[in-house]
């Protein structure tokens, strides 16, 4: 979000004593402020799953998680790192990520929604290019992430306080195609940021729910495609429970099981008489012999 007199969690209802639930979302929404989260929570029927320190994680049973990170680079780095780490512990599936928030803009009108295709960290000068694989039906824009509230809006760009670090943190965990940013213009040279109240911010996000919903749906499909391709075959886990293998043998086993599936369309473990195999090395040798030529 652009820096404005808004607080992170004040507009979210307190839910005391929430028991931690597994957080296994296939799309993670990241917002800085509670007021940005509110319309999303309502629209996607999310409920609170975890409260850790100043972080709140919401989710629904359709694979969507929402993280309220707090304002600024360090807050978003900590929050995204926390959620990514948590999800990696709980599931081998990769999630897609979408940063949603209000932002200042040098040229666009208040209320416009923009998909981000270039992110500049103003302090370091570092530039990143999130691939825009999913077309939200909204125009694209550059984004400049600043450390202090923007008042000049010099470039034809959106201005926020989290985007660059959100991107650099999340792409440590997932491929960049699964990491997108969508901003709703809240302030501009004609409409300074101090006029943006919590209810205005919530209203702006609310006004772009259709585009956000479309992005979430497409990112969900993309993540599902990705996971269907790259997830570890079930039979590998089953065989690893039974045989003790070195790391190198585990990689070999993974590759052999995938190749067998690709060539035959069936699971390899169903063709093996496991009782006749005495060691990991023998298992690998036996499977290699089972691979068809074509």
């Amino acid at each position, binding site marked *: 979000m652009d820096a404005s007199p808004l607080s992170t969690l004040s507009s979210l209802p307190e839910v005391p004593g929430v028991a931690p639930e597994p957080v296994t979302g296939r799309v993670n929404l990241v917002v800085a402020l509670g007021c940005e989260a509110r319309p999303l929570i309502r629209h996607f029927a999310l409920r609170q799953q975890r409260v850790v320190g100043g972080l709140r994680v919401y989710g629904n049973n359709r694979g969507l998680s929402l993280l309220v990170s707090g304002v600024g680079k360090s807050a978003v780095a900590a929050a995204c790192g926390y959620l990514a780490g948590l999800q990696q512990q709980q599931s081998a599936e990769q999630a897609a990520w979408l940063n949603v928030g209000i932002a200042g803009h040098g040229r666009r009108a208040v209320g416009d929604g923009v998909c981000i*295709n*270039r992110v500049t960290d103003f302090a370091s000068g570092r*530039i*990143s*290019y999130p*691939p*825009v*694989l*999913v*077309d939200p039906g909204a*125009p*694209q824009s*550059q984004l400049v992430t600043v450390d202090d509230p923007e008042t000049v809006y010099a470039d034809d760009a959106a201005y926020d306080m989290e985007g660059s670090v959100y991107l650099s943190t999340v*792409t*440590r965990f*997932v*491929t*960049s*195609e*699964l990491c997108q940013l969508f901003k709703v213009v809240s302030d501009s040279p004609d409409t300074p940021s101090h006029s943006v109240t919590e209810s205005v911010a919530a209203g702006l996000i609310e006004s772009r729910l259709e585009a956000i919903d479309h992005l979430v749906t497409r990112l969900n499909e*993309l993540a599902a*495609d*990705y996971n269907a*391709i*790259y997830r570890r075959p079930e039979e590998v886990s089953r065989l690893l429970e039974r045989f003790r293998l070195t790391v190198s043998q585990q990689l070999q086993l993974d*590759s052999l099981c*995938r*190749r*067998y*599936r*690709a*060539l035959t369309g069936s699971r390899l473990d169903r063709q093996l008489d496991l009782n006749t195999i005495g060691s990991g090395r023998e298992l690998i040798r036996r499977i290699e012999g089972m*691979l068809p*030529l*074509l």
Partner: protein
Amino acid sequence: MKFSCIYVEREVRDTPRVKEILQRVSDTAVVTIERYGEVFNRRAQNFRLQKKNPALILAKKHGNLVLPAPPGYGFDADASFYFSHMYNCVYDCRYCFLQGMYRSANYVLFTNYEDFADQIAAAGQGLLHPVFYSGYDCDSLALEPVSSFIDFFLDWFSAQPRLTMEIRTKSTQVRGLLQRQPLDNCIVAMSFTPQTTWQRWERKVPTIEKRLDALSRLQQQGWPIALRFEPLIYSQTFRQEYAELFATVFDRLEAADLHSVSLGLFRMPKKFFSDIATLYPDEPLFARRYNHRDGQVNQLPEQELEMQNQVQELLFRYIDKRQYYHCA
């Protein structure tokens, strides 16, 4: 043609050619970059996901733009070279080595055509009949409506009769060629595989029938045309598949007038193969058994021998052996 986004290097942003290209795709967002590598070579990219909706990068190529062709690549014993005005291809052929060569599926179009022409002229200096192959790292014609690359080079080669250009393609974008007088030193070389291979592994590639239609029109107009049957990928029914393909192809084209015909086996550097197999763990083509030797991945020797001999024998029913070469 649609792109997810267009990245333009600052250095070429205001050149007339880039301005023209941007006018042709005026409904796409444009982002200025310093060097194409910032986007093309960045970390954390997945070629397979990107291929769903690639971006176009307009850039200037520096350094050596024209390189000696790999031994055995071309049809001529004279000196031969290749040049790549573009990285990546609009088609999505599962067997293609480009998937393992680049991290990104975005298209990089190098727009400094004049520098390519200068280096082609320099490379050809003092040589009798040098050949220049286009389409090694891309398809020469497929992006023509956007790039006007061939348009430029046909003009240029028309004034250089001593130099020959091979335009390697699977595209049917031949309107620009048909609107011109044929050039004896510009050969349109179309790649074909059997129908089953096309169906299984050549996404977005025009049908065999459409490609033959384009080639036939070029041949009738007097353009030198060539056939590239590659990659030869072993299957238990390959003999029948190639018999059908050759019957179809030589029914449409005048075999005696063909400039050249080649066969080339499916093979690639081990590193590329390994990266592609990781990218497509569900693809049977990469799950097969191969022969890994000297940094190369080849089909099994007995498969290669059987296929090479039998397809060659089928081919020689239609063409003169002097028209043929084997592409290494």
